[in-house]
Each structure stands twice: as structure tokens, then as C-alpha cells.
């Protein structure tokens, strides 16, 4: 069974078409690289796949759930790492992770190994507002994977991470995680190297992935 099947997917903001005619198929365990310039529709696509935005046309099936009618099936299965870390600034990193663990019904005992894996256990009690962007991104990665989702939706996941941190995050969100991934990136070469399928977007429309993509 395909993990993601999109057929002429369409999404509008008012009259403006943010996504149109997007068709792609991603098998379980594969990585889809979504490439394109600013405003191409990459984040909109991720939000539709996460069930946060309703598609306005075409068909979308994610992990067997037809969107938008069956999007209630998705939350437990999707790990979403977007532009916003989805962490409360006034709470500590650990309090944020406990909060999300409670919402997902995950035992708190899962958190300590996760923090250790990302090497953030020493900073877990500090308020998120006091942390650097790189550390916030590490906590956001922990939040996205704490419920062990089979599908990861990643929007520039290595933004703000130094090489050592990116290496620490690799087993959780990288190819070696074994999860199905949708990876939005501006690094065309890097994204293509770690993907099985590639989708180029320009003004919300699919285009070939080549050097003209960003022109």
C-alpha cells in the first residue's frame, strides 16, 4: 500500500491557487523531496498532508486515510516538524514534551532516552524562550517523534542545527529512521541525495526538478 497518494491535488487561499494539479505516489519507507522556491506551495502541501488544511480538489490519501473526511485517523501517525517549533516559550523543554506526551498518550519514561539521544537533557528544565534556535529545533524534533509516527512531514528539519546536532537527529528524522518522510528543503542536492521520489513546485504547480526550479 502506498503511504501517500495524491491525484491532481488542489488547495486555494481565496481565489489564489496555492497548490494545483499535484500528483505523486510515495511507498512506505520512502522519502519524498519537495523542492521549490519561496511561495511555491511546499509548506501548504505539508499542512494538507498533516490534515491541518483541507484539500479543495483532487484526491489525497495519506496512510490509507482519505483526506479530508478521514483526517481524524492521522494525528497518531504523523510527526510534523514545520517552521514553528510548536513549543510554548514560557514552559521548559521538558514541560513541553510532557504536555505533548500526555496529549498523545505516551509514557513520560519515553522522554529521557529521547532527550539523551538529542543531547538536550541538560537543558530540558530551561524555558524555551531562553534557548538558542538550534536547541529549540532539537526539542521540536523530540516533539515530532515522541509518539513514534510512521510518517514524518519535515519542513527544513536541519535549519539551525550544527553538523553535530544534525548527526544526532539523523536516526530520528533521517533516512535511517526507516519512516516514510516528506522532506521540504531548499538544499536541492542534499534533498535529492536522501530521497526516492522528488516533486518540484513552482507557483503551486508541479514542475520538473532541474536547475530552472529556482529561476
Amino acid at each position, binding site marked *: 500500500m502506498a503511504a501517500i497518494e495524491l491525484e491532481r491535488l488542489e488547495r486555494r487561499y481565496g481565489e489564489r491557487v496555492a497548490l494545483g494539479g499535484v500528483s505523486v505516489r510515495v511507498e512506505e519507507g520512502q522519502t519524498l523531496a519537495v523542492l521549490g522556491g519561496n511561495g511555491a506551495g511546499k509548506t501548504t502541501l505539508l499542512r494538507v498532508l*498533516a*490534515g*491541518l*488544511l*483541507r484539500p479543495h480538489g483532487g484526491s489525497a490519501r495519506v496512510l490509507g486515510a482519505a483526506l479530508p473526511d478521514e483526517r481524524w485517523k492521522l*494525528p*497518531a501517525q*504523523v510527526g*510534523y516538524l*514545520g517552521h*514553528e*517549533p*510548536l*513549543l*510554548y*516559550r*514560557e*514552559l521548559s523543554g521538558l*514541560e513541553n514534551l510532557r*504536555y*505533548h506526551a*500526555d*496529549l*498523545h*498518550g505516551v509514557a513520560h519514561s519515553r522522554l529521557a532516552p529521547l532527550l539523551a539521544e538529542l543531547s538536550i537533557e541538560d537543558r530540558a528544565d530551561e*524555558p524555551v524562550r531562553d534557548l538558542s534556535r538550534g536547541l529549540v529545533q532539537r526539542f521540536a524534533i523530540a*516533539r515530532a517523534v515522541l509518539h513514534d509516527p510512521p510518517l514524518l512531514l519535515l519542513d527544513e528539519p536541519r535549519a539551525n542545527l550544527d553538523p553535530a546536532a544534525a548527526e544526532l537527529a539523523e536516526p530520528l528524522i533521517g533516512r535511517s529512521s526507516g519512516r516514510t518522510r516528506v522532506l521540504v528543503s531548499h538544499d536541492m542536492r542534499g534533498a535529492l541525495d536522501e530521497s526516492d521520489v522528488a516533486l518540484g513546485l513552482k507557483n503551486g504547480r508541479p514542475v520538473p526538478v532541474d536547475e530552472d526550479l529556482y529561476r
Partner: protein
Amino acid sequence: MIASARTILRKDLLIELRTKESVPAMVLFSITVCVLFHFGRDRDSLDGALAAGVLWVTLLLAAVIGVSRLFAAEREQGGIDGLLLAPVDRTSLFVAKAAALFVFLTLVELVAVPAFGLLLLGPGLGSAFPELLAVLALGNLGVAAVGALVAALAAETRAHELIVPLLLLPLLVPVLIACAQATEPLFRQEAVAEDLGRWLGLLSLYDVVFVLLSVAVFDFLLED
């Protein structure tokens, strides 16, 4: 649903405890209004209908501040996305937000009602206090249910600070009437619990209707 509502409520109370954004502002506003009335009126003290009206208008206007800030953390820090990405019933968000607002209002009244009694009320609060507590509790429940609904409606709009009072205050007119009418006899020189049952019944009915209505429509408010 109850477990996730408790989780969200605990988070909201912890954030309020750390930021002190809503409750202190609501308390300060209430006391300021009492002080303004204290110095601005041309009578020594208030009683009866006027006292009840001043108390409830003050509390409802203070509630506007709390409702405006109720979804602030969600709006500014992506918390709604975080909730929609979790396998929780969206009703739990409504229950948690209404409960948080109920707690905020209760904390405000712990300070504002004695301040009102001290600065403005002629007869004193003592003898009618148990009846007043019942009116305050039912009033708070109604304000909390409507407030959580209006806050969610306004959360994703750019002009949320304008929308909140414009929607909230008209919806709270029945609460104001019932609470003021129930409180009026309690604030007379000879306090009596006249018609209290009738007005508490009306308040309870309002509370039930708005809790049910909010639960029914809350899911749709979070749709994109």
C-alpha cells in the same frame, strides 16, 4: 476527553502563573473601575439595583480581557496546530479553555468583590454572602462557556481584540440581567434572597444551553 482537557488546563494555568498576563490585568481593571465609581459618584454608597449593576458590568468588562488573552499562547506559538496534530477530541480544548476562564474569573472575584464591598457597597456583604457565591458561580460558568467559544472564533482572525468584545458582550446580556436581578435584593439595606430561585434557574438554563451549543459547534471553529 477529560484527561486531555486536564492536560491542556494544567498547561494554561502554568503559563498564566509564569506570564501573569490575564488575571493581574483583570484584577487591576476591576479595582480601577471600583475606584473610579468611588470617586466619580455623587452618593456616599451604592445599594440595590445600582450596586448590582455596577458589580456585574465591572466583572463582565474584566472578563473581556481574559477572553481576549485566552487563546494568546495558541495563536502566537502555534499551539492550535499542536493540538490538531494530537489524537485528542477537540471538545477537550473547549472544556479546558472554559475551565481556565472560570478559574481566572474566580480569582478576580476573590479580590474584586471585597474591593467593591469596601469601596462602593453600602449594606455590606456579610449576610447575603452564600447566595452571592451561588450567583457568582453560575454567572462565571455562563461567561466561561460563551467566552471560550468567542475566543476560539476570534483566535484566527487578525482583529481578534475587536471581535471579542463585539461578540461577547451582546451574548452576555442574559447573564448580566439574571445576575444583576438575582443580586439586587442581596444588596438592599435589608438583604433578602427575593426571587433568587427564579434567576438562578434562568442562569442555570443559560449555562446549559451555551455549554451544549459550544460543544456542538466548537469543532467547526477549528476548521481551516
